[in-house]
């Protein structure tokens, strides 16, 4: 048996030294502990399907320029733009609202830097993991540059969504490491839209981590749209910690690429916390998309509701791995997980794996996964009324995800999602 390859030391040299010393120290620490990280292979359970697409060559290790020029985002509301993982205030439009603070890591004072250092990695395990499961968010901990700390004081409501645009652009191969920390105070409300876009066709890697910390009664909606170019290897991690009676809602819409991976880890730590996780993934050509979610019911009386839909065309591959972990003290937990999948061709592949670990005895936990195809009878019915085959298939495919797209609470995102979906349909349902 071949031994797993090690992470090249080229990856352990971060750029951007203009950070508070606490964060520099933390980053250095993480880098040292990564020195003997084994890379995932197809024998690594949680990288079974995706390891073969990982390209962690020395070329990929180099940092991408943070001063690359980008077009201003076409968004009227509050925006924070990151270029290659670094916040760019001059093309951003921060809201200035009592109780809200949006700061770059580089401008944090000693206290806030300590807070940031304390939050980093809290919601997810970014410590070297036990063998068998490799978490590439660890690498983000060793490489992040000028990230973002968003704080909302108690009882503060942000009146509009905050768009965080992650722009990756490069004229050479390399990688970017956006890091976002969000701390939402008691009973405060916030909607964050993370939009991942790219330009150029260099082979690049985006290794991004966003962490949400919700105090008692906080209400956070996180929307994630991924329309990066084909050549982008995307490794995303979202970590969420929820205190008493808080509510977290996540809507993600992802279009495939060379490698798309998103790990979403929610910890329901306070009684009465609630999360709702919706996800739509579409892949075509030879694209790949791998969603791993973990919901941990740590405290009692929490609810989780998860609905993911994958649609795979051509020779593409979509993966859903949904884990629900109900801790011993999490009595009266209520967990629902549904994953439905649609294969549009024989060559496409979808893998779905629900994993339940239940250590409490008084819980309600339901899960279901299906893989299906478009129904010929239904297509015939629609086409027999004069619809083109494309329109018939679009209606049937949209019927599969409509419910999730309609629930996205920001119209601009619904529109972008629909534009992306229409491009997908044009390719997938090309009439020959």
């Amino acid at each position, binding site marked *: 048996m071949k031994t797993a390859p090690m992470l090249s030391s080229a990856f352990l040299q971060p750029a951007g030294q203009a950070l508070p010393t606490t964060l520099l120290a933390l980053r250095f620490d993480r880098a040292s502990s990564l020195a003997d990280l084994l890379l995932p292979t197809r024998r690594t359970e949680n990288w079974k399907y995706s390891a073969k697409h990982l390209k962690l060559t020395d070329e990929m290790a180099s940092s991408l320029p943070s001063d690359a020029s980008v077009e201003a985002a076409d968004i009227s509301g509050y925006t924070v733009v990151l270029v290659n993982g670094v916040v760019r205030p001059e093309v951003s439009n921060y809201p200035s609202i009592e109780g809200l603070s949006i700061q770059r890591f580089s401008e944090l004072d000693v206290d806030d830097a300590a807070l940031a250092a304390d939050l980093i990695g809290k919601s997810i395990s970014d410590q070297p993991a036990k063998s068998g499961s490799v978490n590439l968010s660890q690498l983000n901990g060793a490489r992040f540059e000028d990230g973002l700390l968003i704080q909302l004081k108690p009882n503060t409501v942000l009146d509009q969504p905050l768009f965080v645009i992650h722009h990756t652009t490069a004229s050479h191969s390399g990688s970017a490491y956006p890091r976002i920390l969000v701390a939402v105070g008691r009973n405060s409300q916030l909607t964050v839209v993370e939009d991942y876009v790219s330009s150029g066709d260099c082979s690049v890697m985006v290794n991004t981590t966003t962490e949400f910390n919700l105090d008692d009664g906080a209400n956070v909606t996180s929307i994630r749209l991924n329309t990066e170019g084909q050549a982008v290897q995307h490794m995303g991690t979202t970590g969420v910690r929820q205190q008493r009676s808080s509510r977290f809602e996540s809507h993600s819409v992802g279009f495939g690429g060379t490698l798309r991976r998103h790990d979403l880890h929610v910890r329901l730590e306070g009684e009465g916390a609630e999360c709702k996780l919706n996800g739509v993934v579409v892949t075509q050509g030879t694209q790949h998309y791998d969603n791993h979610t973990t919901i941990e019911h740590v405290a009692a009386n929490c609810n989780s509701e998860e609905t993911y839909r994958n649609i795979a065309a051509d020779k593409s591959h979509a993966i859903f791995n949904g884990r629900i972990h109900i801790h011993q003290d999490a009595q009266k937990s209520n967990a629902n997980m549904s994953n439905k999948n649609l294969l549009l061709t024989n060559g496409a592949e979808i893998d779905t794996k629900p994993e339940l670990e239940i250590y409490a005895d008084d819980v309600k936990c339901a899960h279901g996964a299906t893989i299906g195809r478009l*129904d010929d009878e239904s297509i015939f019915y629609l*086409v027999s009324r*004069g619809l083109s085959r494309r329109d018939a298939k679009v209606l049937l495919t949209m019927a599969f995800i409509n419910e999730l797209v309609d629930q996205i609470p920001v119209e601009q995102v619904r529109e972008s999602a629909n534009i992306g979906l229409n491009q997908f349909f044009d390719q997938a349902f090309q009439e020959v």
Partner: protein
Amino acid sequence: MLSIKNLHACVEGKQILNGINLEIKAGEVHAIMGPNGSGKSTLSQVLAGNEAFDVTAGEVFLNGDNLLDLATEERAREGVFLAFQYPVEIPGVSNLQFLRTAVNAMRKHHSKEDMNAAEFMKLAKEVSKQVDLDPAFLKRGVNEGFSGGEKKRNEIMQALLLQPKLAILDETDSGLDIDALKVVSDGVNALRAPDRCIIMITHYQRLLDHIVPDYVHVLADGKIIKSGSAELALELEAKGYGWLGIKDEAVANQ
């Protein structure tokens, strides 16, 4: 207007239509009766272009166009309409969106402009009233959770909306209560037009009390074995199919 010549078809290797010949002139209504499993629905599916069925011989012309050369959607746009014996439930696809897409596909084919949402809504409400369906049905998924009778009325509503040249009604009368039968029959009578022909597949004379056909045909074992005037249906009602020399088992299935 419609001319079917020596039509043979099979499904999954099983021969079902064994040489159908049928001529229908513009403005005529033809009823097709016959035992269960004799091939009535197969004929209607083949005419509408269901690819699950293979045509092994024969020709079908509608106004001179060879239908068998056209794809399903092209046939529909040329005016073929099938009211399904078992309309498909399509949850998640709104009836309204489906119907508007269908009407606009038709209009585009005839070089007419798209109907906007408001215009379409008005038209759809009118025709839904004509078949006594609450316009609220328009907002539901296609046939989703519709009762048997509601599905049949929805089919007739679609015919009224799409104004076909050839309407094939496959047992649109079955499963209807007495009032619904009246509503559906009125709908079909409203479809009668000098430039349209209608094929009505039914098991029951009672429909033919409301819609008097010009001809009645008996289909058995994939062939038309007898044709006659409207009186033939009365005779079948009284005597069954036995006297026509159809196998006993087929009659027993009736």
